[in-house]
Structure formats: structure tokens, C-alpha cells
């Protein structure tokens, strides 16, 4: 049975833990609001861009793939897949990073089973560490995800896009997808894969529409426009994903810290009960000793 002093020490310990988790929850909640607004604001642009790009991809379907930029149609092979895994730099966010890593491992397993080579480009320290441990020879580079600094989000997206463009254009990778947490609400983040290279073709069964799309004109010429538009599309998709992931991270941390605070409160309650019982038992013991001593006299 622990002594009273020990119990007191433990109660103070858990109380200060609760203070910290409570504070982290509040910080995450206030950051979440800002991050959520930013993520939602960036959504229409990214979605419109994606729609536009899938129209381009559909329009270029009938063309000879070797004449198209590799960012649009891929390199013509389908051997090396690059997975950009978007995680956070900081932990204590519940299953936020673990979920994305699990999705990545499943995806890697599936691609390997098809006999393809996989390269990894993790963003965020947390995912980087885990993936480096599991697949030390697949990781190309690890980028930091400083999601707290929002000004950094666009430059990170640009850096990421640049790296991917270089890898694809040099023919080192043939396809690229992004794995990220899609922000649904503060409680829910959905880990999802998003195909980036080659561009996913719009699913539309409307024959008239696809005939329409086939006759796209470009101004200035197609090559100039596409060399501008394709890297830009990557930047925008990464940017929106980084913002969504940041919002998701804060949401996940808020939920995790809320649970932690609640658990701490429960632990304190249990410990206090034990403490009081022990104290009472000690008093009773002392009384018995005094009484039996008095009786003996």
C-alpha cells in the first residue's frame, strides 16, 4: 500500500499533466479555427483547378502520350511510383499521423505486390521518422511540415512541387500520388490518396461532352500553357492539402488532448479516493492503538 506522501505526489503529478493537456487543447482549438478558415478558403481554387486539369487530361487522351509533357500523361511507363506522404512535424495528435502512415504502408504493399518500385517523399517529421525506419532505402527526402506558420504553407507547397516536377521530368518516377488527411471536421480526418501524375481523367459517361473536350484550343500554344499550368496545379494541390492537413492536425490534437484531460481527471478522482481511504485507515489504526494501550493499563 502506497504511503500518503507517495499518493500526494502522484495526485500533484497527474494534476500538472492535466493542466498541460488542457492548455494544449485550448491552443489547438484556437489554432484550429484559423486553420479551418484557411483550409476552406483554399478549397474552391484547388477543386476548380482539379476540374480544369481533368478536362485537359480527358482532352489529351486521344493524343500520342510521347508528345505530351510527362506531368500530364506520365512518362509512358508505369514502374516507379512516388508517394508524397503528408504528416505533421509534431505528435500528440492521437491517430493523426499513424492513420496516414498505415495508409501509406498498405499502398506500398499493394504497389510492391504488383511488381512496382516505390519511392517515398514524406513531409513532416513524424511520418518521415516512421517511414525511414520501415523503408530506409525508399525514402527520397524528408521535408519539414511547419504547419503552424501559415506563411510557410505556400513556400512548402512550391518546394514540394519543384521536387516532384524535377523527379517526373527527369524520368526518375513515372507516377505520383499524394497521401494526406482530408479535413472533414474537428473530430474526423479521412486519410486519402490523391493521384497527381499522370493527371486523373474525369469520369464522364457523357459522349457528347467528351467529343467537346477533344477539341480544346490553347492560347498561347499548348506547350507553353501546359508548362505553366501543370507545375502550378501541383503547387495548388499541395498547398490545399497542407492547409487541410494542418487543420486536421489541430482538430486531431484537440480531440486527443480533450480525451487526455478527461482521463487525467478520472485518475485524479481515483487517486483522491485512495488517498482519503488510506488517511482514514491510518487514523483508525492510531485510535485502535491508543485505545488498546489505554485498556492494557
Amino acid at each position: 500500500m502506497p504511503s500518503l506522501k507517495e499518493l500526494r505526489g502522484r495526485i500533484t503529478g497527474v494534476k500538472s499533466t492535466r493542466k498541460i493537456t488542457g492548455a494544449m487543447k485550448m491552443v489547438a482549438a484556437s489554432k484550429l479555427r484559423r486553420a479551418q478558415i484557411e483550409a476552406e478558403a483554399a478549397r474552391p481554387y484547388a477543386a476548380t483547378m482539379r476540374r480544369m486539369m481533368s478536362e485537359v487530361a480527358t482532352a489529351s487522351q486521344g493524343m500520342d502520350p510521347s508528345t505530351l509533357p510527362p506531368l500530364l500523361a506520365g512518362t509512358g511507363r508505369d514502374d516507379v511510383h512516388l508517394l508524397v506522404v503528408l504528416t505533421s512535424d509534431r505528435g500528440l495528435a492521437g491517430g493523426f499521423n499513424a492513420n496516414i502512415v498505415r495508409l501509406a504502408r498498405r499502398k506500398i504493399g499493394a504497389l510492391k505486390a504488383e511488381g512496382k518500385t516505390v519511392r517515398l517523399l514524406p513531409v513532416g517529421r513524424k511520418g518521415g521518422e516512421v517511414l525511414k525506419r520501415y523503408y530506409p532505402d525508399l525514402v527520397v527526402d524528408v521535408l519539414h511540415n511547419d504547419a503552424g506558420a501559415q506563411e510557410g504553407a505556400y513556400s512548402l507547397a512550391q518546394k514540394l512541387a519543384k521536387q516532384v516536377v524535377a523527379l517526373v521530368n527527369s524520368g526518375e518516377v513515372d507516377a505520383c500520388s499524394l497521401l494526406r488527411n482530408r479535413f472533414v471536421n474537428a473530430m474526423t480526418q479521412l486519410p486519402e490518396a490523391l493521384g497527381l501524375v499522370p493527371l486523373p481523367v474525369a469520369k464522364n459517361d457523357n459522349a457528347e461532352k467528351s467529343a467537346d473536350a477533344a477539341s480544346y484550343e490553347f492560347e498561347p500554344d499548348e506547350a507553353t500553357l501546359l508548362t505553366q499550368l501543370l507545375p502550378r496545379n501541383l503547387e495548388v494541390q499541395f498547398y490545399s492539402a497542407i492547409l487541410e492537413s494542418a487543420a486536421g492536425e489541430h482538430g486531431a490534437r484537440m480531440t486527443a488532448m480533450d480525451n487526455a484531460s478527461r482521463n487525467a481527471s478520472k485518475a485524479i478522482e481515483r487517486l483522491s479516493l485512495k488517498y482519503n481511504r488510506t488517511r482514514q485507515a491510518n487514523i483508525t489504526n492510531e485510535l485502535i492503538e491508543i485505545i488498546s494501550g489505554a485498556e492494557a493499563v
Partner: protein
Amino acid sequence: MPLRAEIVSPEKRHIDRQVDMVVVPGSEGNIAAMPGRAPVMLQLRGGVVTLYKDDQVVERCFVSGGFVDMTADHCTILADSVRALEDLSADDARQTLEELESQWTNVGPDDHEHRVSLSKQIQAARAEIIVAEKFQQNDLKSL
């Protein structure tokens, strides 16, 4: 058949409405999107986007560049930035232009990518000055 005009910038969706015609500043000259138009994708230069309905101008705004996707039934503008004409300031734009021009002199001739992006920014700043001045003089006809 009306045309759906959408103007989206990275910050938000600015305009999403049914119109009859949209005139956009294409990189090789102004171009109008009308219902039934053959699909075209083009690059924007800095300038004014004008939305028409029933032969009347219903909305004007300044874009600093971006891309446009025109099809038979919609015109989607992905702008780098969108501003209302009354928010433009010729003085601010002149200052930006000066900064950009000093940057231009520092860029090496081999840095093609940087030069292209700078020249676009310079064009947008010049367009902004012109538009802001015309707006001040209430000379909207010639925009």
C-alpha cells in the same frame, strides 16, 4: 442559354453567377466567352475581367494573371489575385513596379523561369496603374 461565370482566387470564390458574356484579358489579347463557344484554355495577363448580362456590364474586377477555362456553357477563371476596381491604387502599384524593375536588373539572363515570372508581375503592375488611373477619371468605357 446563359453562361456560368466563375472567378476563383486562392483566397476564395469571388464570383459565381449566370451571365451572357465574359470578356477576359488573355495573354494574347482580350477574348470573350459566350455561350456555345468552342472550348479554349488560355493564360491571363493582368487586366480587367468584365461580365455582361443583357448587353449591360454587371461586374468588373481586376485580375493580376492566371488561367481561364472556357467551354460552351461555362467560363472559369483561376486568378492569381482578384481585386475590385475601387480597391486599386496607382501609387501602390507604382511602388511595386519600381521594386520589380530593380529585381529585374538583378536577375541573371540564364534564370529563365524567374525572368518569365517577373515579367508577368511587371505587366500586371503596369496594367494596375492604367486601370486605377482610368477608374479615377471615371473612364470605364475604355477599359
